[in-house]
């Protein structure tokens, strides 16, 4: 196949990877679930969805009840059905996993959620208005979850979002192959229908102040996520494409997304894998992922690593970028150093050390970086206490500022940041905020 043919063949290949289950597939899979009592899948799920319950409701064709069961524990069930690392969570804990195939919990959840959204189902009605107001800053999964849970309880919630669209990383940062943007936006609509007032283009520190919030709201929930992609600090970095922008454009402005023929992706986390997937599927003939540590230390989930290897992406481990070679604005290579692994660093992983004189050139006409995001910048603005640069919260998700709560990636000092963890933070913080506001009478 020529490159041109390849490009055509790969067009539209960022559509959702897995087809929806057919009614019969769902019925057969649901029937296979043993309906464990006090099930380990439910424990493994950070939002503790009663999984056997929703699956058996699929088996009995009570899809309305199934959807409700999911949403009662997790308002972003449609996103989580698609983006959750189920191998590490519910499906990983399935009792059938040792000798059989675990139940396809994620896909069954998507089946129930597709039904609910397909029918335009109003699962919840907000409770009687409490007359109390809560501000939520940032309309990503944590913010939507918190706002939705509070609206259900009758609170008047205003959700401030700095971008044009709500949904956070679900809308902007997860490739369409895993979650189409429509799914994230449908969830935003559902939250809005609960009575949450969404104000986009509003950013704390720009056109919104903490004083405004303190005056008008009984409590504040910060779900601001993380900052921009970290800086590498290497010459020519201005020629490097930001991975998050790359993903965003693939979702919202794909026709204008420039894809190189020979793409190098810096980083080996899940975002880096998404970038490599975009490059590969939208026509790059060669994609190489560059990582300064080895395969063992990669932060991407094992199943995503398996996936990207099958996509035909190459890896250059123990490789540290040191300089971008560009000519009249066009990138032509990434200069790198070979690394070896030394003693463990602060992250507990072996520290990469450069091998003197090992410089080499990786030819590339496009370089994308996905090396993690900066810590939340709001910290200094609000003078919040931090933990490893993340917002510090107590067991009730309250920050060092009284009445100001936080959740999602911006507090994730420990453990892996994920959508489902953010949803749970939002849910638990909503509970704390509710208790606080009820106590105040």
């Amino acid at each position, binding site marked *: 196949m020529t490159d041109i043919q390849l490009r055509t063949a790969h067009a539209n290949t960022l559509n959702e990877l897995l087809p929806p289950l057919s009614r019969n597939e769902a*019925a057969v899979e649901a029937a296979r679930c043993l309906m464990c009592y006090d*099930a380990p899948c439910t424990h493994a799920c950070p939002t*503790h969805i009663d999984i056997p319950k929703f699956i058996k409701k699929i088996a009995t064709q009570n899809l309305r009840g199934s959807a409700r069961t999911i949403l009662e524990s997790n308002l972003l069930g449609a996103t989580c059905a698609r983006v959750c690392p189920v191998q590490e969570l519910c499906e990983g804990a399935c009792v059938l996993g040792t000798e059989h195939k675990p139940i396809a919990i994620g896909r069954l959840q998507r089946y129930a959620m597709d039904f609910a959204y397909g029918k335009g189902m109003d699962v919840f009605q907000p409770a009687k208005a409490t007359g109390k107001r809560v501000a939520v800053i940032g309309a990503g999964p944590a913010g939507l979850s918190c706002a939705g849970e509070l609206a259900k309880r009758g609170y008047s919630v205003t959700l401030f979002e700095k971008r044009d669209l709500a949904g956070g990383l679900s809308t902007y940062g997860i490739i369409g192959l895993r979650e189409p943007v429509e799914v994230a936006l449908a969830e935003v609509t559902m939250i809005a229908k609960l009575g949450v007032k969404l104000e986009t283009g509003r950013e704390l520190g720009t056109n919104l102040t903490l004083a405004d919030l303190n005056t008008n709201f009984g409590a504040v929930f910060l779900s601001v996520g993380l900052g921009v992609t970290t800086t590498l600090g290497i010459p020519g970095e201005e020629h490097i494409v930001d991975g998050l922008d790359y993903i965003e454009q693939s979702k919202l402005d794909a026709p204008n997304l420039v894809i190189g023929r020979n793409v190098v992706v810096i980083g080996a986390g899940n975002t880096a894998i998404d970038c490599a997937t975009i490059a590969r599927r939208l026509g790059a003939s060669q994609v190489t992922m560059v990582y300064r540590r080895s395969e063992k230390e990669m932060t991407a989930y094992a199943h995503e690593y398996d996936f990207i290897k099958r996509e035909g992406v190459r890896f250059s481990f123990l490789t540290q970028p040191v300089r971008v070679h560009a000519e009249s604005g066009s990138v032509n290579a990434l200069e790198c150093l070979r690394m070896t692994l030394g003693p463990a660093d602060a992250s507990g992983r072996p520290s990469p050390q450069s091998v003197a004189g090992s410089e080499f050139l990786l030819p590339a006409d496009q370089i994308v970086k996905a090396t993690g995001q900066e810590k939340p910048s709001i910290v200094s603005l609000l003078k919040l206490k931090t933990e490893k640069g993340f917002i510090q919260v107590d067991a009730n998700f309250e920050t060092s500022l009284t009445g100001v709560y936080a959740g999602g990636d911006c507090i994730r000092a420990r453990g892996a940041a994920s959508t489902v963890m953010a949803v749970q933070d939002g849910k638990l913080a909503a509970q704390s905020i509710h208790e606080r506001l009820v106590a105040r009478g």
Partner: protein
Amino acid sequence: MADLSINFAGIRSPNPFWLASAPPSNSGLQVHRAFEAGWGGAVWKTIGAPVLNVSNRYGAWHYAGQKMLAINNVELISDRPLEVNLREITEVKRAWPDRAVVVSAMVESKRETWHDIIRRIQDTGADGIELNYGCPHGMSERGMGSAVGQVPEYCEQITRWVMEVARIPVIVKLTPNISDIVMPARAAVSAGANALSLINTLNSIIGVDLDTLEITPNIGGKGGHGGYAGPAVKPIALNMLAALGKDPVVGGSKLPISGMGGISTWRDAAEFLLLGASSLQVCTAVMHYGFRIVEDLCDGLSNWMDEKGFARITDVTGRSLQRVSDFSNFDLSFRAVARIDQQKCIRCNLCYVACNDTAHQCIDLMDKDGHVVPPQSYDIRTNGKEEAVNKRPSVHVREEDCVGCRLCYNVCPVEDCIRMMEEPSGRQPVTWAQISESHREVTEDWEKMKEYREKMGIHIH
């Protein structure tokens, strides 16, 4: 290799598997193809009185993703002209001299009509006749089928008429839609029948369509009872089969019995043989998967017989019948307790919930330190597969409290994980019948029962 051939009341066939009288044996073409596939015999779909059929004849019961655990039907006896059936029976028998060709018949309850059909069947060269006293729908409303099978006197009268002219073996097929299967069987024995077969289908309504609120299957807006068959009826058939074998009159007559009712695999077949059948009829499983299933029916049965050291079918027939008894003769001192193999246990907790909600509350959840813990005792802020799997409690039977109900064994999804272990009760064997005789008062007075329990050391949990 085991010899699967049978001689059933003089009807010979190379293996015990016959197509039951039903849609699969509706025509010469089908029976011919079945014999090519290896079936030992076929009971031709009932011929006799003129009929008309309806459409949407078959309903089915599906469960948990498994199709057709049972089928029900409102199809009548053969709706093909009698002459066509008789001609095809003649042709098939001529083409397949070594196979059993049995013809099922059902006509109006008139002596001459029965004489006529029996003579015409005999002219085909068929090996035997099966009298259909079983169909529970359509024909019964016209005084045939189960309308005969449900009244022992009718059963006996018609069988006598048949035996007046029969020159080939006559099998009486019994309906299960009766409170005591033994009664019509005794009538058949008394009338001189050569063999019995059972069970025909059970009265049933398979379901109601929740979208249209119509009865399933829908016949122009109506529906009604139809004959129920398939895997789900097997236990009923086995019980009725054993009841015949245990009856002094029917069992004592030594009439061979052709067993049917939910036979789908060689394993089912072996169970029917063990409880007294000497030929086996199959319908629903063939309607589900086609004639090809006879290969494993024969192969599996033969391999099992070889393993068990059974040389021929007659070695198997009735072998477990002596173990069939009733409650009054069971040993009340026999004790079994559930034991869970922790290595095999997958910790689904189905035994736990079954025991605690619906049985005798003798299974505990225990954490790693051996402390009994309630369900859902994990910290809701924990998650992930490692945490869920590693912190999951294990299930343990408190054997001293286990009554041996065997519910946990039945719900456990893992083979051989829960075993019912025979444990000495420390008491002499005793049956209810013996207690009734030696301590009658114990069976009538709770206070006496209490004293008896204390004396014998019987503790109820």
